């Protein structure tokens, strides 16, 4: 069958996206011809402000480079503007632009076809987009006046800015503010002019706009509202100033005009298609000519114009469904999208209406003027009708999802702004409409996921992911996917492997513990033998060894081959195969004698680097394996366990010993804690700290366990903090009246963590997963009645502890501390088999 000719006018985000969608559905149906007025492949126009502020390069923002078109057999005319559509003969006529000619201008209608390119079409898509609005302003056009729309605009602005000191941006909307922030990167003094009494008048209420203005002022952007430019002044053909409606004149070297965009509709209008503000389209993106379609910023759909990307994606999907007949009933019913300001240093999301319009509207407002945070929510009939998040936008995705798809809101509406105390998801996926997008990373809708669950037998989150890609991006939608499975199947099956304690033994932790206790398995090899059909999975060894040591403090049979090299030789392996030695320095307090000893040892063994650690200790780096036992003996100090999944250190400030603010004896308490819990095996390393007052100099609030002295001789006990790949402030577990009580509570928490966490799960994940309220109930209120047992088992572990560096005298296994052994080959013996 002869392929149909599909001509696409416009190679911007809409034109290229719809072609991608078409190729994905039906790679061979069309012969595709595209016209792009810009001399490039297709790029992400939304990121232009990143190019201007130099966080991205032009190359970074290309979506499809020119060779993508070749690979897909698309004939692309670049730098070519379509000047007319001949509907009678089904042809488009295009003109090659000259160098430097702006892409988005319009050619006057022409009668001659001389010198024009012509292409015949069976189906035509118009995706001409929009052009920046330009005010009829005296002086616009002088050197140094710009609009901000294309890569070339961006390059010209950046190039011109080099010789400038001051810039004026006309327009305090999103694009104007992004341009202003970009100009700041070029070291200009930037002033933004806005004719309305406030910034972003279309999206923000006055209060949010005022806070935004302060935030911008703090960055160095001056904002003038309620003022218009009446004239651009020039000197020798270049911009020299902007005269304002109030009579003032601002000196400036550069003017960027960003007062809005206008759909490019002329060729459609001249061809006789119905055009109002935009090219009028129905729900299948069809214009008034049934073989001509349109999408993107150039169209008007149900009376609305769109200037955002989400509607383009949706329109492209619908149009591709229609053109390829993969879903002849597909319809575009409009998009409810929010806007996000991408100005470095300002976080802002605005959704829907900015002020309540009905007396029955529910209005929730939160202000924190000092931090310039403002949050506002307008709810009508149980649905979100508007929201502004300024300064803190962590729940924006949820709000956008609820706004665009109309799902049921949580009972406590404030949770929409602040999250739920329990950490539960705020949306129930079953209440979302079918077309709602669940996985935003991979663009998977509820309908597709439900289809996988109902018709394709997917009963676990990972099975849905394998089938649809949902949940395979950032993973934040996995809870929603689980809700859908629960809704359709009654319960979520877990891909069992996800929940095995170790990959090689098919049991969850609680089941594994039960089997180990019941069968009295005290070694890793016994566990493989009894519970894994004898298969010795190397990925499972360290996790099992850790668990067995926790479960059997005294009876554990330490098969060293099941341990990571660090735990075999009690030192941390380095990139070059050498090791590091960190002796324990209880609470960070060290004697001059110990310091001298460390110095002597470092010299004697030619230690390449001596470094102070973040845990108030001294690290000797680059040590050969064979030197380890000798150094330990020479040091005469116990192991600091800087290599193991155990308590590492308990950092401390000087507390009442010397500090004039000290409220508690932090050093003494830290030292007690460190002595008691040193070397106790935990699922992951634990870092602790004690602070002698709430000033927190020892950073106790970002530790796995942190203790803070407060007035009245009391101590706060915090758990689950961390400052590693993630930063988490610890949760307050309790306030204790005495040091003994603090130590007991820490031991209880540690033992519970030892028994219930996944292998290699830090406390900041564990505490976040369970929730501190649950842990308070168990560990403080003793709701399960297990505290006495936790205390007892921790005591047994403490009693069983011995310093691993004592293996310096008696190695635990042959060749434990041997380096590479030189083999003398005396003579070459012929190999006879």
């Amino acid at each position, binding site marked *: 069958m002869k392929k149909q000719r599909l001509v696409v006018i416009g190679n911007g985000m809409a034109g290229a996206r719809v072609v991608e969608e078409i190729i994905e559905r039906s790679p061979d149906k069309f012969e595709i011809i595209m016209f792009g007025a810009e001399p490039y492949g297709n790029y992400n126009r939304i990121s232009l402000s990143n190019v201007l502020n130099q966080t991205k390069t032009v190359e970074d923002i290309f979506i499809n480079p020119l060779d993508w078109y070749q690979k897909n057999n698309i004939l692309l005319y670049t730098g070519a503007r379509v000047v007319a559509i001949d509907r009678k003969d089904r042809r488009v006529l295009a003109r090659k632009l000259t160098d430097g000619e702006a892409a988005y201008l319009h050619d006057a209608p022409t009668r001659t076809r001389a010198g024009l390119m012509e292409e015949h079409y069976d189906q035509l898509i118009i995706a001409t987009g929009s052009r920046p609005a330009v005010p009829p302003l005296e002086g616009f056009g002088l050197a140094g006046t710009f609009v901000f729309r294309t890569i070339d605009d961006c390059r010209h602005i950046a190039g011109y800015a080099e010789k400038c000191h001051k810039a004026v941006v006309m327009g305090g909307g999103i694009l104007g503010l992004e341009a202003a922030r970009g100009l700041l990167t070029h070291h200009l003094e930037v002033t933004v002019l806005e004719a309305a009494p406030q910034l972003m008048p279309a999206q923000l209420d006055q209060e949010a706009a005022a806070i935004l203005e302060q935030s911008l002022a703090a960055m160095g952007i001056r904002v003038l509202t309620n003022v218009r430019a009446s004239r651009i002044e020039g000197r020798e053909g270049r911009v020299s100033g902007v005269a304002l409606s109030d009579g003032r004149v601002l000196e400036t070297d550069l003017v960027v005009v960003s007062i809005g965009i206008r759909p490019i509709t002329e060729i459609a209008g001249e061809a006789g298609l119905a055009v109002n503000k935009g090219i009028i389209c129905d729900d299948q993106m069809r214009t008034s000519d049934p073989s001509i379609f349109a999408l993107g910023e150039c169209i008007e759909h149900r009376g609305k114009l769109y200037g955002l990307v989400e509607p383009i994606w949706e329109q492209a999907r619908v149009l591709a469904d229609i053109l390829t007949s993969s879903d002849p009933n597909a319809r575009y019913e409009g998009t409810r999208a929010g806007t996000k300001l991408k100005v470095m240093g300002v976080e802002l999301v605005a959704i829907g209406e900015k002020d309540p319009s009905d007396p029955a509207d529910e209005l929730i407002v939160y202000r924190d003027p000092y931090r310039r945070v403002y949050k506002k929510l307008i709810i009508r009939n149980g649905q979100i009708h508007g929201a502004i998040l300024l300064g803190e936008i962590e729940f924006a995705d949820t709000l956008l999802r609820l706004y665009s798809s109309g799902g049921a809101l949580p009972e406590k509406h404030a949770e929409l702004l602040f999250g739920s105390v329990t950490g539960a998801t705020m949306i129930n996926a079953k209440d979302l409409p079918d077309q709602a997008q669940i996985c935003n990373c991979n663009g998977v809708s509820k309908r597709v996921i439900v289809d996988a669950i109902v018709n394709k037998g997917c009963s676990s989150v990972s099975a849905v992911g394998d089938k649809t890609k949902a949940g395979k991006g950032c993973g934040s939608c996995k809870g929603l996917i689980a809700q859908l499975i629960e809704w359709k199947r009654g319960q979520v099956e877990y891909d069992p492997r996800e929940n095995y304690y170790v990959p090689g033994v098919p049991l969850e932790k609680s089941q594994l513990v039960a089997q180990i206790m019941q069968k009295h398995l005290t070694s890793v*090899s016994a566990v493989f033998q009894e519970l894994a059909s004898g*298969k*010795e*999975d*190397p*990925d499972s*060894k*360290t996790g099992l060894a850790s668990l067995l040591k926790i479960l059997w403090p005294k009876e554990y049979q330490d*098969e*060293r*081959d*099941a341990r*990571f*090299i660090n735990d*075999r030789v009690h030192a941390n*392996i380095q*990139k*070059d*195969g050498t090791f590091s030695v960190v002796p324990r320095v209880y609470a960070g307090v060290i004697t001059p004698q110990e310091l001298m000893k460390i110095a002597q040892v470092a010299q004697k063994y030619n230690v390449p680097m001596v470094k102070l650690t973040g845990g108030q200790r001294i690290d000797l780096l680059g040590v050969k394996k064979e030197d380890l036992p000798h150094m330990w003996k020479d040091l005469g100090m116990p192991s600091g366990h800087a290599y193991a999944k155990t308590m590492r250190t308990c950092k401390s400030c000087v507390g009442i010993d010397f500090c004039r603010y000290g409220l508690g004896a932090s050093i003494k308490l830290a030292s007690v804690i460190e002595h008691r819990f040193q070397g106790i095996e935990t699922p992951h390393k634990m870092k602790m700290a004690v602070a002698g007052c709430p000033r927190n100099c020892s950073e106790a609030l970002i530790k796995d366990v942190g203790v803070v002295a407060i007035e009245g001789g009391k101590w706060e006990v915090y758990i689950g903090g961390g400052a590693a790949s993630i930063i988490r402030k610890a949760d307050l577990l309790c306030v204790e009246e005495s040091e003994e009580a603090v130590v007991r509570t820490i031991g209880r928490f540690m033992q519970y963590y030892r028994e219930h966490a996944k292998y290699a799960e830090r406390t900041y994940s564990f505490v976040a997963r369970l929730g501190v309220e649950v842990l308070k109930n168990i560990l403080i209120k003793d709701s399960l009645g297990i505290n006495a047992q936790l205390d007892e088992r921790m005591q047994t572990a403490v009693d069983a502890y011995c310093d691993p560096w004592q293996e310096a005298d008696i190695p635990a*296994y*042959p*060749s*434990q501390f*041997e*380096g*590479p*052994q*030189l*083999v003398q*080959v005396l003579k*070459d*013996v*012929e*190999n006879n088999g």
Partner: protein
Amino acid sequence: MSEPIVVDLGPLAQIAQGQGKCFEIKGQRVAVFHGRDGKVYAIQHTCPHRGGPLADGLMGDGLVICPNHGHKFNLSTGEGSEPGERVKVYPARIVNGMIQLEFLA
């Protein structure tokens, strides 16, 4: 190319069960493993990824895991878990409790 030579590495008992040990033979480092299955394996000691010491790795099920970045290698074939990575394998055997290695100088 020279003929392979047989090198005596001494008693098997010098290597703990389930662990490896590094030997240096004519400038080449060889990781020799004493499996819990009673067999002996020998491969190149230096990980082709970033030079990690394979003799210090965790072994089991015919594999060794490099301690530095977790790349895995088949002890019998040398095949690596990452595309394009492979280690040299040396034929090794136990004769009267002693390890013998075939070594190509």
